[in-house]
């Protein structure tokens, strides 16, 4: 593919990737949040495919495309399905009033984007290629994930925040160096999957013990 097409497709995939994260801040319907998360997983897989095709399918690129298939299965199908089941079991369809309202959240997201451009300047300076120029976008997703983690009050939204962080870091890995070694990538994916399963079981227990998954109830252990 020509360089112009490559850069356009790369930017398109990154744009969808970032937009999905920003929309998570905007929506309060939990089912919609899970759909956005699946969309983001698909955008990440597309991003890795574009990088793979650019490297050439007869060399390292083929491995990247294979990894992209794995990413699509895990992050666009398996994890969203797990989350969807958790939403269905819980009977709580909406996020409660978040600590920070939607308008303020979007302003914070803009601030986080500026912050990530500032932080990643040394990274971009080291290798000013089109892929590395997109690293600030991926880091913005990481920061938005942390923001969701601290500002949302439903257990499921926190899990989505954690997964946004993880998606963002995976994107940074592929944009900078076409990924960490395969064994590490596999181990990380397994850890993430297991962590989500653990959190799902804990959500069910929380519902049994507290009668809901409002994290404001988790205030009994303190000094």
């Amino acid at each position, binding site marked *: 593919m020509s360089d112009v097409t490559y850069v356009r497709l790369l930017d398109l995939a990154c744009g969808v990737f970032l937009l999905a994260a920003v929309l998570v801040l905007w929506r309060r319907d939990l089912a919609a949040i899970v759909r956005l998360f699946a969309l983001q997983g698909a955008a990440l897989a597309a991003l890795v495919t574009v990088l793979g095709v650019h490297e050439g399918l007869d060399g390292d690129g083929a491995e990247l495309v294979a990894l992209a298939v794995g990413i699509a299965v895990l992050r666009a199908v398996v994890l969203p399905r797990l989350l969807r089941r958790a939403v269905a079991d819980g009977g709580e369809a909406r996020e409660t009033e978040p600590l920070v309202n939607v308008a303020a959240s979007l302003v914070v997201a803009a601030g986080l984007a500026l912050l990530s451009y500032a*932080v990643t300047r*040394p*990274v971009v*300076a*080291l*290798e000013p290629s089109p892929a590395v120029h997109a690293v600030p976008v991926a880091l913005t997703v*990481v920061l938005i994930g*942390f923001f969701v*983690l601290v500002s949302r009050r439903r*257990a499921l939204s*926190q899990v989505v*925040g*954690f997964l946004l*962080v*993880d998606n963002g*870091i995976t994107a*940074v*890995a592929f944009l*900078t*160096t076409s990924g*960490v*070694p395969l*064994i*590490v990538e596999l*181990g*990380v994916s*397994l*850890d993430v999957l*297991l*962590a989500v399963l*653990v*959190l799902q*079981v*804990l959500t069910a*227990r*929380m519902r*049994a*013990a*507290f009668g809901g998954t409002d*994290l404001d109830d*988790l205030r*009994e*252990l303190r*000094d």
Partner: protein
Amino acid sequence: MTTTALLIAPVGLPLLAAASHAVYGWRPRSTAWSGAAAAAGLLACGVALAAAAVDGPRTGLGGLLRADALSAYMLIVVGAVALPAMLASPAYLAAEQAAGHAGPADLRRYGVLTQAFVAAMALAVLAASLGVLWVAVEATTICTAFLVGHRRTRHATEAAWKYVVICSAGIALAFLGIVLLNFAARHAHVPSSDALDWAVLAQDAAALDVDVTRVAVALLVLGFGTKAGLAPLHAWLPDAHSQAPAPVSALMSGVLLSVAFYAVLRVKAIADAALGAGFTRTLLTAVALASLAVAAALLLRQRDYKRMLAYSSIEHMGLIALGAAIGTSLAVTAVLLHILGHGLAKSAAFLASGHIQQATGSTRVDAVRGLLARVPLTAGVFGAALAALLGFPPFSLFASELGVFRAGFAAGMGWAVTAALLLMLVIVAAVAARAGRMLLGAPRPGPGAAALVDGARLPRSAALALVAAPAACAALGATAWPLHTLLDTAAAVIGAQP
């Protein structure tokens, strides 16, 4: 060949024990002891690897596993803490079962998860790649999540949730650091298969891009620091350590924190070679003093003795971080000795606290009075372990704390050491006052006062585990010479200068 076997066995033995629990369940006369056997085997492998690694690092499994003096020493620490914890487990679980807190399925799950947890820690210290090290440390969070939440009460569920969310999110920062370090290494023309190998990275550190490495190191220290219980992301620790079953608390407090700090030491070796010692020194001094301050402030108004032990762990990790910040070879050998001494003393304290909790049915300090008169063995061990943790001789923590302070003054960090000493004085006062009330004084009359299980009626294995750990800590304080060569080599491995 033998080296490869020695490298695989520490991970394989606990996994075998886990498999035995999965297949046969928890049987009081057979599988219940497989964990202790695996821990003994792990300890033996650690000693054998230490003997071999003093002459140089050993690798196995196609370069995936590596043991140098530091990894071998950490393996010994894992084994030395796991052994008493596993010896004490059958008695602890029998009492839990008798009290109706656990059924056969819970016991089976306990067996499988604790052994998987020990295997993950062994893998973490033996991994040659920072990436595999990260995967193993994250795996420990997953293995212990259900152990923390085992009682399924509101408190247990809350503790488990916070534990998984804060630790997973914190350690995600470390993974971002690893990704950036990988990027810097690839630009320094390290081949992709070695780009996360800590030995290669430390060797080629001078070629790494300074600005990218600085960001990566800050993320790595913060991320692994979360799992090591260092401020500012320490909030999960007192909840998780106070809710887990006592033998698991012993493992988490005594050795899991140190395994996470081991990762910080590996990162520090790379960072010091790439950026000079100043960067990690500033970073680690800041988190060390913050951790000590948090521990001192919250110990002053602590009313729960298991949480008191948990905050004491934050204090000791802060002290260990301070020693690492000083970074001279005296400081680093003292830090390593402190890791072992703290592991032994803290595991004894948690095991004793488990028996106290089972006997009195409460973890509140003011619900427990006159223990020394009523349960002399358990209370004696609890008191001795607390004395060790407060840094009194003859325990090894006295020697290692002295070493850290001397190294600090010699390295021109007197102000930091003075601040640490003042905070530790507050901690000594707070802990000693509570320990005095629990151990001494007249028993409070009332229901339940007569129901205490006397120390003499503890099963022999549990009594042995209780006594052996503080005894080993005292022996180590009296004479640490068998470890001298190993400690010096381990300090040299991470680039500590005299």
